[in-house]
């Protein structure tokens, strides 16, 4: 089955991005396809390559990028939400791309399910 994911929170203040990541990992392990992960609201901070968590903590920015690259997942950061939060191409982690909100609606249309993770 084709699944899409919406992440509405950043990698630190809320558990949302962790839950979404574990869900995506489990879905792939079960043979499902993650058609797109869309990052909205503070979720755009998941793509900030300048983020430096402590070394004994998980690094969701890196984890998302790796999961995306290994499995060919489209990781899309909302441009409107990103710009107002200072997330720009210069600081975008490799593996993510910035695009419009239409990509979220399209993810809902083209995938069998859309699961929202947020606060």
């Amino acid at each position, binding site marked *: 089955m084709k699944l899409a994911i919406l992440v509405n929170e950043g990698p630190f203040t809320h558990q949302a991005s962790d839950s979404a990541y574990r869900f995506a*990992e489990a879905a792939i392990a079960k043979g*499902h396809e993650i058609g797109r992960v869309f990052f909205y609201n503070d979720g755009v901070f998941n793509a900030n390559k300048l983020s430096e968590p402590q070394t004994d903590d998980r690094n969701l920015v890196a984890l998302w990028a790796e999961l995306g690259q290994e499995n060919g997942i489209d990781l899309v950061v909302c441009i409107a939400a990103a710009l107002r939060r200072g997330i720009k191409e210069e600081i975008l982690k490799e593996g993510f791309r910035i695009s419009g909100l239409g990509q979220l609606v399209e993810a809902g249309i083209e995938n069998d399910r859309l699961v929202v993770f947020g606060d």
Partner: protein
Amino acid sequence: MSTMLHLINKSPFDRNALDTCLRLAKTGSSVLLLEDGVYAAMSGGSYAKAVSDRMGELTFYVLGPDVSARGLDDKPLIDGIDVVDYGGFVDLVVEHETAQSWL
């Protein structure tokens, strides 16, 4: 007929996500308690009645990794709640036509 999977990730003691979900959820749909939502699954807690009252109309699940993370493995869950892992979470999403997150 409803094939909705409701996702509750907030403690019922902090936010009204579970209250509103229980008010609007239709018979035959399912509820997965995850993240801080797992506090609603404790049989010794004051939300046990609200959940038990809908048991039978709704099917309740709780995400085991979030229960363990919060040190609650030694606390009994409300009778009838099934524990799932992330793979089980994925199965629930696949088995239900729509997932609704009560953020």
